[in-house]
């Protein structure tokens, strides 16, 4: 009928609908599913973000280590490096001589790098200076040169 006014649904109907068996449970299930899905999505995205951050940090650390190594390689020069390597070679030969006991030839010492030879000459001259000027030479006040730890 035209003009007939349909009465508005009463609130009691909605409340009664909620009280109907299954409706409330369905809503709870839907909410739980939505929350579960959101948590899973967040976890998945978070995992990817964490992995990306981890790989970025790992790359950063690797490049930092490489850069540090490059900067350390600028010093000292090859001559000083050779003296350190000479020391290692002496130690290696001593170790080898202790291990192999059935040789029929005497070992030859490792040849000396240029800087070490200069140091040896300078030290030898200093000892000669000592013997020429007497046992008690003037004690200098020059500072002791020590490498930093």
């Amino acid at each position, binding site marked *: 009928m035209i003009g007939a006014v349909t009465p508005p649904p009463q609130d009691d109907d909605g409340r009664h609908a909620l009280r109907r068996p299954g409706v409330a449970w369905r809503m709870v299930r839907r909410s739980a599913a939505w929350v579960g899905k959101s948590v899973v999505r967040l976890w998945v995205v978070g995992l990817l973000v964490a992995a990306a951050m981890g790989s970025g940090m790992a790359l950063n650390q690797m490049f930092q280590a490489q850069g540090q190594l490059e900067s350390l390689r600028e010093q000292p020069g090859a001559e000083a490096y050779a003296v350190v390597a000479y020391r290692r070679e002496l130690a290696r030969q001593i170790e080898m001589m202790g291990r192999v006991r059935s040789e029929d030839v005497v070992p030859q010492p490792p040849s000396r790098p240029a800087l070490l030879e200069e140091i040896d000459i300078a030290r030898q001259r*200093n000892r000669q200076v000592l013997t020429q000027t007497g046992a008690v030479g003037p004690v200098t006040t020059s500072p002791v040169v020590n490498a930093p730890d």
Partner: protein
Amino acid sequence: MDDPEEAISGLPDIVRNSDRPIIIYQGAPPNQLDQAAGNSLGLLSWLALLSLCLFIIGFCFWRVWNPAYDPSQVSPVHAEGRPLGLARQVEERREINALASDLVTYLDRVRADNFDRRRTRATHPLLSSPGGIDELRREWDAKCQSVREGIYDRRIGRLDAQIAEFQRQRARQSDPLEATRLDGALQGVIRQRTLEVTNRRTDGDPALRCVPSALAPLCARDSKDVWCHPERAAPQEFSGKAA
């Protein structure tokens, strides 16, 4: 009786008589397969990205913290060889730099003291500290003497064994001609033993003379040893103007 084929292909009465719209899809509803494909693609992309990130993390971690050593490369510090991990390489290089620092300053100081004709008080840990070059040289010379003694001991021991053998043969020998020959051989071995003992005492054999490590010859120009020309033997160890 109804045709069974028609009954199968037709819709059930309950559906046909209902007032609800009947939609029949052929295959799958539109966009439904697209969504499934999109989900699979997303999962694959996610897995690929995650794998890439994990691979990068693993690679970088291994590159930095690899604990292994490469025995084919000489390390001036480690007996095992050159470390492969970047962290250990940095540590090794720091140690080398600490050991080698101020060597030139030390040399200048000693030269200046020589010029002023005074006793130098300058020291350098690489040379004079425990485990330094001076101590290692002393140890090397002592070991060389020990090797030399061992060689003489073995030589004299062999001669002693020969003498004992000749003496045993001589005691059994009844033929005077053979006995004379054995006596001659025995005297020869005894002379040789005496010579070896003398050489041992006086260091008379040049072939068995130990060269003091402090008097070793200078590195040859074309030497490829890392302690002679490290810039040639290990060019990767030097960067910038140091190379």
